[in-house]
C-alpha cells in the first residue's frame, strides 16, 4: 500500500467531523421535507403556502375545515375497527395453524406449508379482480369484514409463530401435560406466553400495514360507512374535487398522526419488529 499516512488517527472513524454532521442533517432534512412541508401548509393560512415567513400566523382553521368537510370521525372508527379485527383474527387463526405446523405430524404437512410460504408475497393486489368477485358473491362488498377477512390467514404470521413455537422445548409441554393440562391449556399457558415478543413484533407490523393499506379497501368499499382513513383521504384529496391544499395537508396529518405518534412512543419496538419480521 502506498499511502502517505502510516495510520489514521483513531478519532477519524470513531467520532465524526462537524462538516459531516452538518451534511448528514442536511440530507435528513431534505429527506423529511415532504413531511415538514405538510406540517407547514397545515398550520398556516393558505396564502403562506409558497411564502415562507418565519412569523407567519399559525392557525388550526385548516384542521377544522378538514374535519367538517369529510367524515373523518367515521373513517377513524372504521380504520380502528378494521385494524383491531384483523389483528385479533390473525392472532387466533395463525396461532392455531402455527401450533399444528410446529407440533403435529400431519400427512401432507410440507405441501400445505409450501402453500403458506408462496402466499408470503401474493398480495390481494395480484388477484384483485378474482378476489373482488368472490367477496361480492359472499356479500362482503362494502363491509369492514370484507376488507379484513382475506388477510386473516396471514402467511407471515404463521411463518413467524411456527418458527418461534419450534424453539420452545418439549419438556415444558410435557410438564404441563403431567399437571393435567389439555392441548388448549398447553397452547395458552406454555406456547403463547413464551412467544410474546413474536406476537408484539408481528402485531406492530400488522397494525402499520393495515392502517396504511389502500388498494383492496379502495376496491371493496364504496361508502362512508366502511371506508378506512387511507381511502377516505384518497377520495377527499382527489385532484378533481378541487379542495384547498392547506385543508388537504391538515387532513393528511390527521390520518397519519396516530401512527406517527405510535412510532415515536414505540420506536425501539417498531425498529426491532421490522428487523425481526423481515429477516426471519
Amino acid at each position, binding site marked *: 500500500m502506498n499511502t502517505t499516512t502510516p495510520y489514521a488517527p483513531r478519532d477519524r472513524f470513531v467520532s465524526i467531523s462537524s462538516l459531516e454532521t452538518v451534511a448528514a442533517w442536511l440530507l435528513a432534512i431534505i429527506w423529511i421535507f415532504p*413531511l415538514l412541508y405538510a406540517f407547514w401548509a397545515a398550520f398556516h393560512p393558505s396564502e403562506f403556502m*409558497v411564502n415562507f415567513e418565519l412569523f407567519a400566523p399559525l392557525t388550526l382553521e385548516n384542521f377544522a375545515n378538514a374535519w367538517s368537510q369529510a367524515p373523518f370521525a367515521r373513517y377513524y372508527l372504521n380504520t380502528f375497527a378494521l385494524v383491531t379485527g384483523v389483528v385479533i383474527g390473525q392472532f387466533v387463526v395463525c396461532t392455531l395453524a402455527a401450533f399444528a405446523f410446529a407440533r403435529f405430524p400431519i400427512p401432507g404437512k410440507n405441501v400445505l406449508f409450501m402453500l403458506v410460504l*408462496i402466499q408470503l408475497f401474493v398480495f390481494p393486489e395480484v388477484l384483485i379482480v378474482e378476489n373482488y368477485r*368472490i367477496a361480492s358473491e359472499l356479500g362482503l362488498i362494502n363491509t369492514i369484514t370484507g376488507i379484513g377477512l382475506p388477510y386473516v390467514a396471514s402467511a407471515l404470521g404463521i411463518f413467524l409463530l411456527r418458527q418461534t413455537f419450534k424453539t420452545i422445548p418439549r419438556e415444558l409441554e410435557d410438564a404441563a401435560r403431567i399437571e393435567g393440562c389439555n392441548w388448549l391449556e398447553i397452547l395458552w399457558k406454555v406456547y403463547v406466553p413464551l412467544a410474546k415478543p413474536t406476537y408484539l413484533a408481528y402485531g406492530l407490523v400488522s397494525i402499520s400495514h393495515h392502517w396504511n393499506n*389502500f388498494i383492496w379497501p379502495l376496491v371493496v368499499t364504496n361508502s362512508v360507512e366502511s371506508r378506512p382513513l387511507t*381511502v377516505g383521504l384518497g377520495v377527499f384529496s382527489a385532484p378533481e374535487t378541487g379542495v384547498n391544499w392547506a385543508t388537504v395537508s391538515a387532513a393528511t396529518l390527521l390520518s397519519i398522526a396516530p401512527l406517527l405518534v405510535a*412510532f415515536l412512543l414505540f420506536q425501539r419496538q417498531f425498529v426491532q419488529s421490522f428487523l425481526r419480521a423481515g429477516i426471519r
Partner: protein
Amino acid sequence: MQTKRMTFPGRWLPFALLAPQVIVTLIFFIWPAGQALYQSLLREDAFGLRSTFVGLENFARLFRDGSYLNSMSVTAIFAVGTTLVSMSVALLLASTVNRMIRSRSTYTTLLVWPYAIAPAIAGVLWWFIFNPSIGIVPYMLEMVGYQWNHRNSGSDAMLLVILAAAWKQISYNFLFFLAGLQSIPQSLIEAASIDGASPFKRFWTIIFPLLSPTTFFLMVVNVVYAMFDTFGIIHATTQGGPAQSTNILVYKVYADGFVGLNLGSSAAQSVILMVIVVVLTVIQFRFIERRVNY
C-alpha cells in the same frame, strides 16, 4: 428416546387447528388463483354471454399488445429505479448515522417516520409538492429554467413516482442497513484504517462486501415492494399517465379488470404477476436458507 410420541388424543385435532387457515386460504387464494388460471384460457364474447376456450391465446395477445409490453418495461424501469434510489440513499444515511454518536436516536426517529406513512398518503404529499401549478418544487425549478410538468412529460412523471416510492421505502432499507453495519466488528475497520485505508476504501473493500447478505435481501424486498405495493402512490400521483408512461403492471390489472372489464386479458395478467411473485419468493427462500447455513 423421542421415537413415537402421541402428543394429543384424537386424530382430528391437528386438522381442526388448521381448518380456519385452510378455509380462508381456499376462499381468498386457491379459488381466486384457480379462477384466474381458468379465465385466462377463455375469451368472452362482446356481450359476456358465452365464453370459448382459446388456450394460450390471451397470453399470446398480451405479448403482442404494445400497451402491455410498454407496461412491462415501465414496471422494470420503475422497479430498478426505485430500488437503486432507495437503497443507495438508505446506505448513505445508515453509514452516516452509524458514525454518529450524540444525536443518533433523534436522527433515527426522523428517518423512520416516512415508513409510518401509507403509500397512498405519500403519493398525496408528493403530488402536492410537485404540482405544476401550485407545488413548491416546480416553482423552484422554474427559477433555474426547467419547466416541470408530469402531466405532459412521461419522464417527469416517472421521476416523480420513483422519488415518491423510494422515499417511503428508504426508512425500511435504512433500518436493515444500520443493523447490518452495527454487526460488523469495529476491530476489522480499525485494522484497515491502521493499514492506511482511506474511509472510502474501507467502505468498498470491507464494509460493502460484509453487507452483501443484507443488500441482497433488501434488493428482493424492494423489487417486490416496487412492483406490488406502490399502487397507492401511482393512484394518487399520475394514475398511470401521461400516455401510460407510469402504468405499472399492478395498476394495469386494476385498470383493465375494473375499468376496461376485459376479464380474459386481466386474468392472464394476474397469472403472469403470480408467476413473477412465485419466482421472487423462491429466490428469497433460496437466499434465506443459504444465509442460515452460512
